[in-house]
């Protein structure tokens, strides 16, 4: 008599179950990224915050001194000047970059001849290393050899050279202009990508309803572009707020600290001046401003009601 065969279903091993578990795999795939973030982001950030509470100097380990560095900074006029400069620099440059970037994106979104060529050209300022473009601006703003001063003089519009980097107001405007020139491509190209995701049918429907060009922009383009604007401007503000190279090459923070940003002052005090603790404290003092910018973007600009044109 034949014995009926019974198919024995073997229980999968622990390892194979582990290998097939979505959670485990997910964790496994995230681990390298998490390790990188921990080593290169969390640790330096944590170390920076800790250094801000110590009197560490170059070549000498410090001791915990509580908030003494911050107390010193609180009464330091140069630090407050750098805070003012940084806010002015960030707000002015970011606003200009947004307006000009959006304008450029709208132009590039139109049917233009050689569209690809123009889009590539627009990216150039972003592609050139900051230090190189800063050196170019250094010549453009030179108090003796500025091509702008020369050209304006040749045209008879001015009778003396412009003191671009020597006068505090001019110097601030000059470094902001250089930053705007460099930052526009990022805003323009990113917003252009956003513009291209807006369905043409919405424009057609609005046009049939008799919407003007301005109404098309105000009630179709802008609401649908707002999420991209929020992300783009968050990054733009962060890049601008933490700018270092432009200032370092152009003015070293001068004249008389009129263009010192928190990042450049942090370097000057922490590395050149050897006070790692105080330098770190200045860098840490940037964090609340950066957090505020991020929170504003995420909880403000991304609110659906705003995006749909409503109020609070």
């Amino acid at each position: 008599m034949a014995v009926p065969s019974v198919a024995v279903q073997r229980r999968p091993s622990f390892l194979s179950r582990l290998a097939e578990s979505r959670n485990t795999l997910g964790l496994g795939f995230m681990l390298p990224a998490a390790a990188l973030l921990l080593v290169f982001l969390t640790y330096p950030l944590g170390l920076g915050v800790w250094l801000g509470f110590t009197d560490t100097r170059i070549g000498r380990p410090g001791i915990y001194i509580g908030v003494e560095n911050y107390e010193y900074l609180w009464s330091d006029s140069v630090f407050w000047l750098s805070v003012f400069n940084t806010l002015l620099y960030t707000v002015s440059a970011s606003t200009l970059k947004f307006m000009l970037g959006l304008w450029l994106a709208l132009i590039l979104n139109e049917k233009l001849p050689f569209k690809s060529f123009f889009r590539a050209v627009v990216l150039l300022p972003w592609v050139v290393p900051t230090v190189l473009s800063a050196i170019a601006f250094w010549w453009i703003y030179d108090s003796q050899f500025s091509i702008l001063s020369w050209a304006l003089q040749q045209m008879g519009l001015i009778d003396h050279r412009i003191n671009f980097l020597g006068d505090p107001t001019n110097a601030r405007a000059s470094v902001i202009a250089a930053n705007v020139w460099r930052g526009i491509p990022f805003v323009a190209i990113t917003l252009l990508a956003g513009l291209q995701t807006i369905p043409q049918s919405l424009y057609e429907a609005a046009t049939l309803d008799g919407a003007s060009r301005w109404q098309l922009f105000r009630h179709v383009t802008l609401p649908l572009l707002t999420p991209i604007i929020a992300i783009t401007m968050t990054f733009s503000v962060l890049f601008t707020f933490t700018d270092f190279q432009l200032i370092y090459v152009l003015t070293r923070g001068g004249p008389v600290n009129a263009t010192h940003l928190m990042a450049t002052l942090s370097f000057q005090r922490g590395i050149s001046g050897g006070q790692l603790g105080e330098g770190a404290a200045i860098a840490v003092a940037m964090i609340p401003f950066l957090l505020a910018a991020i929170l504003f973007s995420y909880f403000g600009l991304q609110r659906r009601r705003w995006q749909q044109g409503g109020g609070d």
Partner: protein
Amino acid sequence: MKFTRRDVIRTTAGAAVAGALGSRFVGSSAFAQEGLTYKPEEGAKLRLLRWSPFVQGDEDQWLKNTKRFTEATGVDVRVDKESWEDIRPKAAVAANVGSGPDLMLVWFDDPHQYPDKLLDVTELGDYLGKKYGGWHDGPKQYATREGKFLGLPLATIGNAIVYRESWVKEAGFSEFPKDTAGFLELCKALKAKGHPAGFTHGHGVGDGNNYAHWLLWSHGGQMVDEAGKVTINSPETLKAIQYAQELYKTFIPGTESWLDVNNNRAFLAGEVSVIANGISVYNTAKVNKDKDPKLTEIAKDMRTTNMPIGPVGKSVELYQVTTAVIFGYTPYPNAAKAYLQFMFEDPQMSDWITSSAGYCCQTLKAFDSNPVWKADPNNAAYAKASATLRPNGYAGPLGYASAATMADYVLVDMFAKAVTGQATPQEAMEEAEKRANRYYRV
């Protein structure tokens, strides 16, 4: 016969002494010192980070001397270079993390910022001092702390007035004024003739600090006293600021934005008549790589002289001092010491000073007679830089506070703020006092 490394070193040192005896450039002081030899470690390799040269001959000769050392000892030395302003942060990072080049040519008070991280080279410093007529006091102060050598004082980069002789004559001065009062009159006359002067009021590490310290010290002001108490708020400083205000009126516009290179550029373009600079600006015109006829004319008209003497009655200047240090973390301390010894001995040091064409002033007195100082009349103003310099943070101790005060441009900003009218002299002084007090911890 087999030569060991020790023999080679001994022979090299002997050759150096022999060279010194028949020396071309050094004085005749005590060369009968007992030799000092360091035996490089087996398989030693060294890495030196130095500042990018301002005069090409300096780097060429430094590399030649290094090659001679490698040939004599078998120790390979890699020489890297960085812009001079980047040396300070790089050295700071190397000291802090305990990794990087074995040797570095650092600036100003750097050795005093991390003395514990540097190899003690007192034995070598004393040996060289005795052998070559002693160290000049100023550079020695930058390199020593509590009687120990933290490094070897390598050179002083002199700073002097560079001017256009024909324009000074055109302004009615047959010779360049020696005192601050006459200098102000000259600058006024030059401005009236359309040839303004130009001195750096911006954040130029070298030129900005040189000018600001000269203004202060020549009028008897000082940042701190011997005990490190901030004394910048003084009648002497007030006089210095008032003088700077008058002088500023004779400048070309824009000097408050000038960094280290701007004065050279403006001078060589014929925009300004008088600047203060190292000899590099003259060498650029003299070498005239592009054979520009306009530059040839400027070079012929260029003259140098020491900064005018102020009410204190003597020449007092900051200058830039560079020190050769060995980091404590080097696995090859003996090789590093042997290298420095070789580079400081004659004829290497003589050749290097000669090739630097007046840019690097000797720190060892025996090399004072180097013919480079007489090779061109314009070199003479830089010959005594090591002998006349006054260390940063005078009259206080060198260290963290003096370095931080300079790095934060406290003095440069004080003058710039007052001359540009952003503050009254009194306000500028008070702010400088407050800022300096933060570092001197009052």
